[in-house]
């Protein structure tokens, strides 16, 4: 079992004073990029993600076009000042993988077959990284998609769960992420009860997986309500 160098749990409370099943403070805002068709900013504690959606728009070069459905393109990027030590700008192996993961998490929710030969582009920028950046990115991207008026089955809601010092926790922060025994990224369409992303790093027992998934589902239901309120706020 991986032992962390720092003590992550003190008297049953985490380093930032949260209980194991507690989320960080969540903030959501729609329409932050005025030139985009839809955009959103989501904050989970110190993690800040901005997503911008462009499209559906014409797709070139032509060989990328699909005759029967549109395509979804996604770019996940961390800005150089998002982490403590400067991140080399530009795509690296990690952000290319996360771009794909985010795309796969959102794709089942979108009616892409309505836009043959076209593309929908999503840009996710991480302004500040403190753990759980991919799920924050997914939450922002799905808000941006909805506000761009793109037909979807449901909003996609995501959260992260994990295990530190034999305790199951919700919404990992950066330091917990780095020292965890296990962490799991989770995304779902809450009103359809369909899971669109499930990634795990580390080791877990079967019962723990089940328990973590229940925790994640409950958290997603809460985040879903926040997403709905954030977007309805725009039209108030």
């Amino acid at each position, binding site marked *: 079992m991986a032992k962390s160098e720092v003590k992550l749990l003190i008297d049953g409370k985490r380093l930032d004073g949260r209980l194991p099943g507690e989320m960080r403070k969540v903030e959501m805002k729609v329409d932050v990029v005025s030139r985009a*068709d839809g955009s959103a900013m989501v904050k989970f504690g110190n993690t800040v993600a901005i997503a911008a959606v462009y499209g559906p728009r*014409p797709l070139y070069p032509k060989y990328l076009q699909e005759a029967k459905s549109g395509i979804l393109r996604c770019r996940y990027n961390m800005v150089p000042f998002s982490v403590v030590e400067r991140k080399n700008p530009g795509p690296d192996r990690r952000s290319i993988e996360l771009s794909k993961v985010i795309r796969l998490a959102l794709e089942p929710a979108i*009616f892409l077959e309505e836009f043959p*030969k*076209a593309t929908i582009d999503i840009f996710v920028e991480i302004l500040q990284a403190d753990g759980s950046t991919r799920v924050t990115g997914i939450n922002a991207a799905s808000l941006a998609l909805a506000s761009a008026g793109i037909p979807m089955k449901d*909003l996609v809601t995501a959260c992260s769960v994990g295990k530190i010092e034999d305790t199951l926790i919700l919404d990992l922060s950066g330091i917990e992420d780095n020292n965890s025994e296990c962490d799991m990224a989770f995304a779902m369409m809450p*009103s359809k009860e369909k899971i669109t992303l499930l990634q795990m790093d580390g080791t877990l027992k079967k019962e723990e997986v089940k328990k973590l998934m229940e925790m994640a589902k409950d958290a997603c239901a809460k985040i879903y309500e926040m997403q709905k309120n954030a977007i309805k706020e725009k*039209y108030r």
Partner: protein
Amino acid sequence: MSEKREIVLPGEFLCEKAGRKVGSGAYFEGEKVFARVIGIPNIKENEVSVIPLAGAYIPKVGDRIIGKILSVEISGWMVDINSPYVAFLPLAEGVSEFVDISKTDISRYFDVDDIIFCTVSKVTKDKTVQVSMKSIGSRKLHGGVLIKVNPNKVPRIIGKGGSMINIIKNKTGCEIYTGRNGYIWIKGENKSKAIEAILTVEKESHVIGLTEKIEKMLG
């Protein structure tokens, strides 16, 4: 009329299907109908749909639209219609006289960047779009300015039976053409006033008593 209109988001439950026709902006799974775009729900006895608040223009046959010529081809023109799809205007649909393409340069009829008021005449399943100038009222628009608005707000800008757009036209004395695709062409002395009014309608489309406000604004 209620002051606050309810807004639904994708995935929100609307009603039981109960034999209703599921229109645009909604989809059904089993016996349940859900919204699929952000918009205002419209649940009637035999039909359920959602009027969208955002989204790109998807061409439909019969729509009166404004297009901008992108390029001149051998026997027609490619037209930008503010949509994910580019439309094609065939020579025969654009010009009523006979043209011998081996002898004529067709850019004398329409050249790149010309603005036309036309109708969507054909849309195939994979969204190949054709437009036509044969319908009544279609013409080339000379001079003026072209502005872009949210295509979903165009019906509000036109108003019931053209009420809103007629106010703007009469008060400013401008010549205005509204395309269903969100392009609006304006020509006249007071065009800046007209543009301001149109953008106000677009921004405050949900406000009740907007017609009076615009009337006041234009004096």
